[in-house]
């Protein structure tokens, strides 16, 4: 039940991000939509690893070593998502650098002004 | 009994967070949106953390420190945003009557 709710939240965020990227004309809002889509994907991936009535795979007072394989949540999607967050940051940084250069050339942030690639 | 008080406080905090989101959507210009977002969400944070302190009394000191951190950081960042918005001359809604920064002496205003 919990993981279905979290899964649906992640998928809803992906949908909102895709809609935002397609609708807006301002470059910065497109970048925000991309970032939302990335966050939704990360939430979705972590939600897949949930085991029913499980807890985090960290052995402290709440979870001791002997009962960990029965009660811990899958650690592999979380490890993948740590990497994915850093890559998402990297792509966002490059997109923002491109946005700055685009603004320098045409003095506007609307992508309707950049028609050189249109035929 | 303690759980009831804690639940009521968390509920009040959630109501304030919701009103922060609603205010950010419905307010007319950038400054009022920033005000709604910061004030309501900081108070919502404080109430939720205070409600948690009733649920887990052993965490009270840590939660009080957390509330202090939130009070230190949230208003400072909102102030920086609002000053930056004023300096690049984002327009105010015509219902604004007082502009205290325009009438302030040069020493306080900086160069803007």
């Amino acid at each position, binding site marked *: 039940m919990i993981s279905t709710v979290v899964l649906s939240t992640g998928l809803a965020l992906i*949908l909102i991000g895709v809609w935002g990227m397609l609708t807006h004309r301002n470059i910065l809002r497109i970048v925000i939509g991309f970032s939302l889509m990335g966050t939704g994907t990360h939430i979705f991936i972590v939600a897949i690893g949930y085991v029913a009535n499980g807890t985090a795979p960290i052995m*402290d007072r709440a979870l001791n070593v002997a009962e960990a394989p029965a009660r811990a949540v899958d650690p592999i999607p979380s490890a993948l998502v740590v990497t994915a967050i850093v890559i998402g940051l990297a792509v966002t940084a490059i997109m923002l650098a491109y946005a700055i250069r685009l603004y320098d050339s045409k003095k506007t942030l609307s992508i309707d002004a950049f028609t050189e690639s249109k035929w | 009994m303690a759980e009831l008080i804690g639940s009521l406080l968390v509920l009040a905090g959630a109501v304030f967070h919701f009103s922060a989101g609603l205010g950010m959507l419905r307010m007319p210009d950038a400054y009022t949106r920033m005000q709604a977002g910061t004030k309501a969400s900081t108070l919502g944070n404080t109430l939720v953390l205070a409600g948690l302190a009733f649920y887990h009394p052993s965490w009270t000191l840590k939660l009080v420190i957390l509330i202090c951190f939130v009070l230190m950081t949230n208003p400072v960042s909102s102030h920086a945003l609002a000053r930056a918005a004023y300096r690049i001359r984002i327009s105010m809604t015509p219902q604004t009557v007082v502009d205290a920064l325009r009438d302030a002496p040069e020493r306080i205003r900086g160069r803007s």
Partner: protein
Amino acid sequence: MIRRAAIVLAVALFGLVFANLAAHYAERQSLLPLAKRYVELVPRDLGAANVITGILLTYRAFDTLGEVAVLFMVAAGVGLVLAARGRRNESSPGEAPEPPRPASEIVQTGAQMLVPLIAIFAAYIIMNGHLSAGGGFQGGAVIASSVILLLLADPHRRLDLDFLSYTESVAGVLFVLVGVAGMIVAGGFLDNRVLPVGQFGAFFSAGAIPVLSILLGIKVGCELSVIIDRFRPELSTERGSQ
């Protein structure tokens, strides 16, 4: 009109696929065999209490090294894309950029109070990588956020880019050297048993994982600070020195 219809169609199709995914999802009742092996192996062999950090810094440490390389490429790429900006502005002196104005007093005072606290918090996160939730990447990002606060509070401050690039190179080289030591002394590249595994849950335990976390945190913090520094406008006094 057609564009709007196409957008609605695309989002609706995505929504259909996602609804299908969410409807046919059933929670797992037990771990996958690979995950079960990891959860059993990490506390026993590596001595780390945090399974995810054990995976990221020993079993999948090569991916972490590749990710550090990705961050380095991003810093270089952002520098390349934004470097041509300064030179282009020199050749067209139409509008000179305004000199950065000092921050208001509230931001300066707040920064003075907060930067030490943020730095302590970052160190806490890094050192807790093997004990509880935390790790090198997370702590490095928090260090970079303290650098952002410094730059916001004092726009005239120039970061010592030589020191940052030297530090991050040294941290990267040390990371690889610990890995090579793993090949020589212990099981394989970036094996964490080069240092004694120690007592489970103690502060200095889990072999080389704290050392790797610290190096990773330093490297990531310096990388992100350099990336952020590239986004600032060129200060007018700097152009003459280039």
